[in-house]
């Protein structure tokens, strides 16, 4: 019974992605070996976490959902009161040994809880259930927005919304909500921080202030555009190597990748990302119980949303919000969360036959 269970296609895709990450980090980090060592250690830890979670049966996740969510909610509250402030945002709890970011736990806790709420009643959900699901989604999102961490808020909103969508939220209601959203947009605009407004304005016309607010956006686009079809070659991206790109080993790593590997490289990268997402959706399709389906569908598609939002912002289509390129950007916390999500996905797939009810 101690046989390690995992999903081979998913594992292969993820390992290749990790390898790509190390290759491009070496270039983006100025050939700094310590960066590579640090990232490798994180990857190793994240993969161990993934394989461990792959052994867990999905009905356990179902039973634990309220507790995981509840614990996450309490910690989010604590962060606002006693959290560690770094770079102007309050996101961390200091646990002595290490700092913990409760919003990362909620990236998994929120979709679990929304799926839990919805699967307790027959689908498609009735309005009462929907109100409860919306509350479970919006309360943690509000707390994270207050930190402020716009990137994580958006990703958590996306993961919960995906569950509600998968559960059969009526198309007509979706239409009505989008209309309402469009009407309320000016109101939300006034609620944004000044620097957030500035980022959105810059998006429309970066060249209006090429050495000020638009500087990073323009430099990033020059990097991508000058890469051309074949790219300038590994370690040869002049934009990246000469420090024109901000945050080039974290959020803006895609501009380094596309400058050095060109459009062909970008296509290959997309093949990997889409392949991994498709495998996740395949798992969701062929699993047998509703909760697992909802969770698997949401986790896979949220992963692709990361890719979409990150590349969208680096390529100058979306405002700059702090979302890393999944499994490629330098950084530990979000990688562990992502890998944990894939662990849950593998667990769902491994136990699909057990769950047929």
């Amino acid at each position, binding site marked *: 019974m101690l046989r390690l269970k995992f999903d081979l296609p998913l594992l292969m895709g993820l390992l290749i992605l990790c390898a790509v990450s190390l290759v491009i980090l070496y270039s983006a*980090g*100025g*050939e*700094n070996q*310590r960066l590579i060592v640090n990232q490798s250690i994180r990857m190793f830890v994240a993969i161990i976490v993934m394989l461990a979670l792959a052994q867990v049966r999905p*009905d356990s996740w*179902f039973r634990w959902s309220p507790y995981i969510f509840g614990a996450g909610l309490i910690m989010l509250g604590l962060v606002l009161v006693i959290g560690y402030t770094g*770079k102007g945002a309050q996101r961390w709890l200091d646990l002595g040994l290490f700092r913990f970011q409760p919003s990362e736990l909620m990236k998994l806790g929120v979709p679990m809880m929304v799926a839990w709420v919805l*699967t*307790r*009643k*027959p*689908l*498609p959900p009735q309005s009462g259930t929907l109100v409860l699901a919306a509350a479970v989604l919006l309360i943690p999102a509000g707390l994270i927005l207050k930190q402020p961490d716009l990137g994580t808020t958006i990703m958590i909103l996306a993961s919960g919304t*995906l569950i509600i*969508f*998968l*559960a*059969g939220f009526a198309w007509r209601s979706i239409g009505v909500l989008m209309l309402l959203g469009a009407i309320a947009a000016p109101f939300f605009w006034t609620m944004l921080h000044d620097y957030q407004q500035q980022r959105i304005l810059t998006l429309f016309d970066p060249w209006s202030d090429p*050495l000020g607010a638009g*500087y990073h956006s323009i430099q990033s686009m*020059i*990097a*991508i*555009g*000058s*890469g*051309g*079809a074949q790219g300038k070659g590994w370690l040869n991206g*002049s*934009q990246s*190597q*000469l*420090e*024109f790109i901000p945050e080039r080993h974290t959020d803006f790593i895609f501009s380094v990748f*596309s400058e050095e590997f060109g*459009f062909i490289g*970008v*296509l290959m990268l*997309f093949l990997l990302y*889409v392949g991994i*997402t*498709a495998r996740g*959706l395949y798992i*969701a399709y062929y699993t047998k*119980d*509703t*909760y697992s*389906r*909802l969770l698997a*569908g949401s986790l896979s*598609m949220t992963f*692709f949303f990361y*890719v*979409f939002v990150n*590349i*969208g912002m680096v*390529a100058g*289509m979306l405002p700059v919000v702090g979302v890393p390129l999944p499994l490629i950007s330098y950084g530990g916390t979000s990688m562990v969360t992502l890998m944990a999500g894939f662990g849950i996905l593998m667990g769902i797939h491994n136990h699909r036959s057990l769950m047929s*009810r």
Partner: protein
Amino acid sequence: MEQLELKDYLRETNLIHARLIALVILLVVLMLVILTRVWYLQIYQHQRFEVLSKDNRVRLLPVPPVRGQIYDRNGKVLAENIPVFTLQVLPSEVDDMDALLNELAKIIHISPGEISKFKSQTRARPDFESQTLKVSLTEEEVARFLVNRHRFDGADVQPRLQRHYPYGGELVHVLGYVGRINRAEADSIDQAAYKGTEYIGKLGIEAKYESDLLGKVGFKQVETNAHGRIVRTLDRSPPISGEDIHLNIDADLQVKAREYLGDRRGAVIAIEPSTGGVLAFVSTPTYDPNKFVNGIDHRSYNALRDDINRPLLNRALNGRYAPGSTIKGLVSLAGLENGWNKNTEVVCPGFYRLKGSTHRYRCWRRGGHGSTSMLESIMQSCDVFYYQMANSLGIDKLHDFLQKFGLGEQTGIDLIGEPSGLMPSREWKERVRGNPWYPGETLITGIGQGYMLATPLQLGVMTATLANRGKRIEPRLVSQLTHGSGDEQEQIAVPTGALLASVSAQAKNYDVIIDAMRAVVEHPRGTARRVGLDAEYTIAGKTGTAQVVSIAQGARYDESKLTEFQKDHALFVSFAPVEEPKIAVAVIVENGGSGSGVAAPVARKVMDYYLLGVDATEVEAAETETAASEPAANSDAVHEAG
């Protein structure tokens, strides 16, 4: 999971399958959107961006501002920025780093510590960032390097400004120092404002006035060649240098006051009563702030930290001592204001006993002072007089009155981390100790002992307030901030101390107290009579002695048996001239023994220097001789114990 009927299960499966297919469509759409955008940038617009990339030679570089300088009241420079030459190495230009370091070490002295620090920096930062190998090169080293420059590809000498404190340790407890920005500070500061700046104020004035001293970062647009080297500067928005700070401190007086304290542990505060301007702010021992600017090495730091004399402690600001008899004038004033007649005499048999108790509260003079008036009680520092007065006033009145002179409250000085001291009250004892207030505690509060704690700065402010006849002014180190120099100098701000309190007491009562404090230094039987001797101006003062070791009932105080760190602290507060006070001085000498013997002469010399410009070092030598010739006559005064 709910018990669902088979029909529902099938319906749910079909529903979710339909939605999953919708997601696949969404996935394809999102993918196409992104790929179209990247295709547009990389293929369709490639030509344009390639040109932009090749022409992309314009970079923005931060130009750090020059930190404001700090001057004393006479315009002497206390903190300046001096040009130093640093040895920089650009790792990406170096083929064999070890060989380069070896070669460099032959002409420039590089310590193993500097090499290991440099190596850890290069590992942590990208190759194309220049790293500092050695901070301040001598002119000779610079010359030797420039001659041999062609041999050292990747290494270069660069000038930069570095903070320097010409007075060394003399003012470290006032100015503090700047140091490299550490990780915790990096998280809390506005990164944009510190672009290109490596230093931040860590302590003292440097920390308190950080935002004024810092200045505003400038930028320059530079054109680079294909390798990123700067070819020429296109445009620059110059930085705005920080504001200069002018202190009320008189650097000469500060140096002298430190000299008068000698190598003893202690503090001297001198305040101009009318403005609250701090003229001298001395805490000994001191340490050299210049060592901290580029990071002090562990061994030197540990030596400072573990020094038994605790040089890192700012005694003037943070040292807390029992004020002892120095508050007796104020207690008398409280008595006068509450109906005590100035001519009332108290018989001092050498001890005081509360009704219904056998405990003897002793006077410092075993034989007692006999029948003692208020004037004599201050002049001779009789304890029994104050036991009785404190007992008749009660702790509540005593607390409220002394608090008006700033005891138990922060003085509001322009430094960070000032303690509030402790002025005990019933409420305080209930809250902190959980016990009721005992009458005996009122007695020892009346002579400045017990729970009571005050900082040297608080004693200085208390004395200045008395000199002002009740006007308590916030002490200020900084007199003004200016920008620019010469004709273009403009005044930015004059942070005068606020009037914190006005203690209303009758003028004639102030006269009684101040006359008695004159008697302390002038009367043949005053406890500090040597101090007033031959003074060319009038002085009002009060001695004090703070016990470090408590004396058991019935035991005798024997100084010779105590080790140095168990000896009493010596205190003296004074102001002069009495008619129109120009300076108020508080002196504390840790384990000095007695206020009159050790602390008072320091205060006298400080006042001589400030008021007359006389350096009294020689006077001291003469005085020691006189004191030695008549030891018997002095013993009473010297052993005044509060």
